[in-house]
């Protein structure tokens, strides 16, 4: 037993040749966010607070596809979404279609705590944000040059492109298959179990590059991108459509609960046996303080730490 935390900044076809100037800021960001989470856990903050805190930090980092740095819709706008879940009570909150809210995960928490509903979206969510006085900014805050470029390339290739960390090579249209087999990345998330054994999970994203306006992925869907129970907490990343139909986060917890399978095995099974290759990754922690971070893509930006002193920041596999 003891606390544990894991976070991700997206799974996808992260090339092993990723240039240092792309790699370093992301690794440092993961390290920094991990540290923030660890300190909060050491200060005995409850999991729900910890995951929100860490995801807020990830949203503020422009190199990840959430909050600032969100990828753009087919109209060049941002539409952000997020969800959060408290394992001990199964209370949850979710938001979609946000354009101005600086921290989507915090609005999701407010939906959970301040409304009779679980999920608010688009104009209704923005109105609620105004009522709550949560921090907002205009689109220039969220839109980065990198993402404007990605959208341009996706348009040129007439494709819905799932975010990735490097720009397309010129004339490489044939290398990148269509949306169904495309490489992907993006979405941030955090899961933790605190000193009292309470679990929580949160996920936040800007979605897919060149997505249709109004497209909702897995990140705000309880049971798909995010789930927490008394046994475990899970946050997923990858191809949203696939994760949604496979209810990935819930499946990990269901295997543990109904088949008595331990965390590592359940998480690995769902990712490696149930999901098409190149579509998904997740981070998960169990009530017993274990951590699992499986992915079936080339890489996944991730970090984790446990109370016994173990910690890791990684992109690809060790071997």
């Amino acid at each position: 037993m003891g606390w544990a935390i894991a976070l991700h900044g997206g799974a996808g076809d992260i090339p092993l040749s990723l240039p240092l100037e792309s790699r370093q800021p992301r690794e440092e960001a993961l390290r920094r966010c991990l540290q923030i989470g660890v300190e909060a856990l050491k200060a005995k903050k409850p999991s729900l607070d910890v995951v929100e805190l860490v995801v807020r930090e990830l949203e503020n980092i422009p190199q990840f596809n959430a909050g600032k740095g969100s990828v753009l819709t087919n109209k060049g706008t941002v539409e952000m979404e997020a969800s959060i879940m408290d394992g001990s009570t199964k209370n949850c909150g979710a938001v979609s279609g946000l354009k101005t809210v600086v921290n989507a995960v915090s609005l999701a928490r407010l939906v959970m705590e301040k409304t009779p509903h679980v999920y608010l979206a688009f104009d209704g969510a923005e109105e609620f944000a105004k009522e709550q006085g949560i921090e907002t900014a205009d689109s220039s805050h969220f839109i980065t040059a990198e993402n404007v470029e990605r959208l341009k390339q996706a348009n040129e290739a007439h494709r819905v492109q799932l975010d990735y960390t490097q720009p397309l090579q010129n004339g490489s249209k044939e290398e990148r298959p269509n949306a169904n087999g495309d490489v992907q990345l993006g979405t941030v998330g955090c899961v933790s179990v605190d000193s009292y054994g309470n679990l929580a999970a949160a996920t936040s994203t800007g979605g897919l590059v060149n997505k249709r306006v109004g497209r909702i992925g897995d990140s705000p869907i309880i049971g798909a991108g995010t789930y927490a129970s008394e046994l475990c907490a899970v946050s997923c990343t990858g191809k949203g459509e696939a994760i949604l139909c496979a209810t990935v986060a819930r499946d990990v917890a269901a295997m543990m609960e109904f088949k008595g399978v331990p965390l590592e095995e359940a998480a690995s099974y769902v990712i490696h046996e149930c999901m098409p290759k190149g579509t998904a990754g997740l981070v998960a922690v169990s009530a017993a303080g274990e951590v699992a971070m499986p992915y079936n893509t080339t890489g996944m930006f991730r970090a984790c730490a446990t109370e016994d002193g173990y910690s890791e920041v990684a992109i690809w596999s060790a071997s």
Partner: protein
Amino acid sequence: MGAWAIAVHGGAGVDPNLPLQRQEEAKQLLTRCLNLGISALNSNLSAIDVVELVVRELETDPLFNSGRGSALTEKGTVEMEASIMDGPKRRCGAVSGLTTVKNPISLARLVMEKSPHSYLAFSGAEDFARQQGVEVVDNEYFITPENVGMLKLAKEANAILFDYRIPNGCETTCGANVESPLHMNGLPISVYAPETVGCVVVDREGRCAAATSTGGLMNKMTGRIGDSPLIGSGTYACDLCGVSCTGEGEAIIRATLAREVAAVMEYKGLGLQEAVDFCIKTRLDDGKAGLIAVSKNGEVAYGFNCNGMFRGCATENGFMEVGIWE
């Protein structure tokens, strides 16, 4: 070749004082929809086609809370949502925030089959609808005088209630026309009337499908999304079964109820009815909900933990049942 089975629902959580005439109308509608589905199944239509066509019928009829006859938002408008899932490949499609699309379930199917996405909402979904050329009408088409009256009552009830969650059996009365202390989602049952609709089918090839459609919670905040369009919560279908849920949206989402039925079948090896009972009895905490389900073996089952659920079911061997109460 196996045998088909079909179930439909028109919502869990029924006013015990519902006038007999209304009960009759509901049963007639459920019967008509069942018969539509049965004809289609006897003509060898696939499960996914049948659930869509049955739910279209339920949406078009103003009786239940979907399509025409949808519950109203706090602003007096209609925002509809729906989802559909095809068991064999676990394909899914969902829509939310529709204001002009005559049949939300058909748009959900188009999302699944004609877009690279699985879920579209609000203005993006409306744009897609126009691109696909589906039938659209003014928002007023969906609004019925009955629901305008209900909205007014809901607002009165909320003006007195401090918190949406009040315990069942509480004796507090909340204004005019409340004859029963039963509440769901914080509203007196006479006003709440969830009446989401859904259909689940297994065809002769053993393929399962599920579809759910709704106008959502009476007096909901604009932008509120419930369980009906959420895959795993209101709707789910896989190789083993097809499930559609109805009731308190929040409770269904927390329980990921539709997925739960399939998960206990898959991971605990429970049979369909056992799985349905298990989920209804143990996964809802103090939430109120109901569901219908079919299995790939041609079985049909339903369950609910509130005082009634509008439902109908039939199997190929001639069994047919339409009911409201226990």
